[in-house]
């Protein structure tokens, strides 16, 4: 069901959900538990294997790496955890980044796993993202394979002449290759543009007008952020 929903309500739903997560004060722990249950429920409805969901979520590790260091630096109250003396303020801040970041990444993965890149671009176009940006993104999608193949061929050609990159002394060669790849891609860009002009390109790519969406589709898509906002509202009531 999640897969068949049109892309733009899904994008809006994901954004609203992330905003709700970010807007929740970090000390309201139970809210985050609620959000977590919600997003996992959506992933299950979308038939995304939980293993896939959590393995893909590992992508956030480099980004939250510094959050792990935060409890070690700071000032104020100190708590002892095993052999470490940790600063409470840093601990809370780090937990905030970790929890909110993870929820955001889980949402993004659920969205991207249940939506093809094509649909995502159409959705962004529907949401009035400037057409230029949508076009650039769709060209990237089309040409990433072409450029990748070109890079592979250059690599094979280098290795066929006895070159293997092992360390810093080879960076110069790799940098030159990267430069050559850039120039080639740039020139390809010019040729593509020529080919587009030859077929009458005036700045807009063809797109079909999808029918207006019914209220029930919107409601289905927005069920996730609405539930999250409800949780937030309830805890607001409790905390006031």
């Amino acid at each position: 069901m999640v897969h068949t929903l049109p892309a733009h309500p899904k994008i809006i739903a994901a954004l609203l959900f992330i905003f709700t997560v970010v807007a929740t004060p970090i000390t309201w722990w139970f809210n985050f538990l609620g959000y977590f249950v919600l997003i996992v429920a959506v992933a299950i409805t979308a038939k995304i294997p939980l293993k896939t969901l959590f393995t893909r979520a590992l992508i956030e590790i480099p980004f939250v790496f510094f959050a792990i260091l935060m409890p070690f630096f700071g000032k104020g109250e100190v708590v002892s955890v095993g052999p470490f003396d940790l600063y409470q303020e840093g601990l809370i801040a780090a937990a905030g980044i970790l929890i909110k970041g993870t929820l955001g990444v889980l949402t993004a993965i659920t969205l991207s796993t249940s939506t093809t890149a094509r649909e995502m671009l159409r959705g962004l176009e529907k949401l009035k993202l400037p057409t230029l940006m949508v076009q650039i993104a769709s060209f990237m999608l089309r040409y990433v394979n072409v450029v990748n193949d070109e890079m592979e061929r250059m690599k094979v050609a280098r290795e066929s002449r006895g070159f293997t990159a092992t360390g810093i002394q080879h960076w110069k060669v790799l940098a030159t290759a990267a430069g050559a790849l850039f120039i080639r891609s740039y020139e390809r860009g010019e040729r593509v543009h020529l080919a587009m002009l030859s077929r009458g390109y005036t700045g807009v790519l063809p797109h079909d007008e999808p029918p207006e969406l019914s209220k029930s589709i919107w409601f289905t898509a927005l069920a996730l952020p609405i539930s999250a906002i409800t949780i937030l509202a309830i805890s607001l009531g409790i905390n006031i």
Partner: protein
Amino acid sequence: MSSTPSLLIENLAFAYPDGNQALYGVNLRIEKGERVALLGPNGAGKTTLVMHMNGIHPTAHGKVEVAGQLVNSSDKESIKVIRSKVGIVFQDPDDQLFMPTVGEDIAFGPYNMGKRGAELDAIVDEALQLVGMSEFKERPPHHLSFGQRRRVAVATVLAMKPEILVLDEPSSNLDPASRRELADILRSLDITMVMVTHDLPYAYELCERAVILSGGVIVADGKTSEILKNDGLLKANRLELPVGFSV
């Protein structure tokens, strides 16, 4: 005065902004329905000439007419019409196929010409059928073989119902079977055709007339069979028939 030619080029000269002169007064007249091979060594100015046919390069000196209409790149409206009349198939199909699926790519040109809805669908289906690629409509271009991509590239241009089809090295990088399939397709089309190529047997097979562009001027213009028999002329212009091939 016979009927209006599909393409008329008179005294066309062109120099690149860096001062490198590519064309020194080209004269060429191609009648409706003719298939003409444009031969010449590397750097003869063939691509530059092609870029003048649909106004990508503005005509600096001389004139270019397509079906009686002057190519004037400063007139946006007329250039739009010219580009719908001159269909260029570029050498690398990856340059030509930039949309996510084959069907959408073929729709790109006619869409720009203002076609929509059922009419657009019909044009796309017809073009795919002409090159025998109907079952690939929903496929992304990078999943096709090179020969298939070249055929789709031809279809993208045919969909614009051009007056002239211009092919830049149509047989390059094709395996023998793809080469023959493309030849069959091209032969079946009832359209004026300009084929830029080094592949002399291919030119002989498909075009009754050939012109040689060398050093920025047309140095020979005649029956393909006559031109390919003239060893001295070929040699002087760095053109060679494959070993064992004779006309």
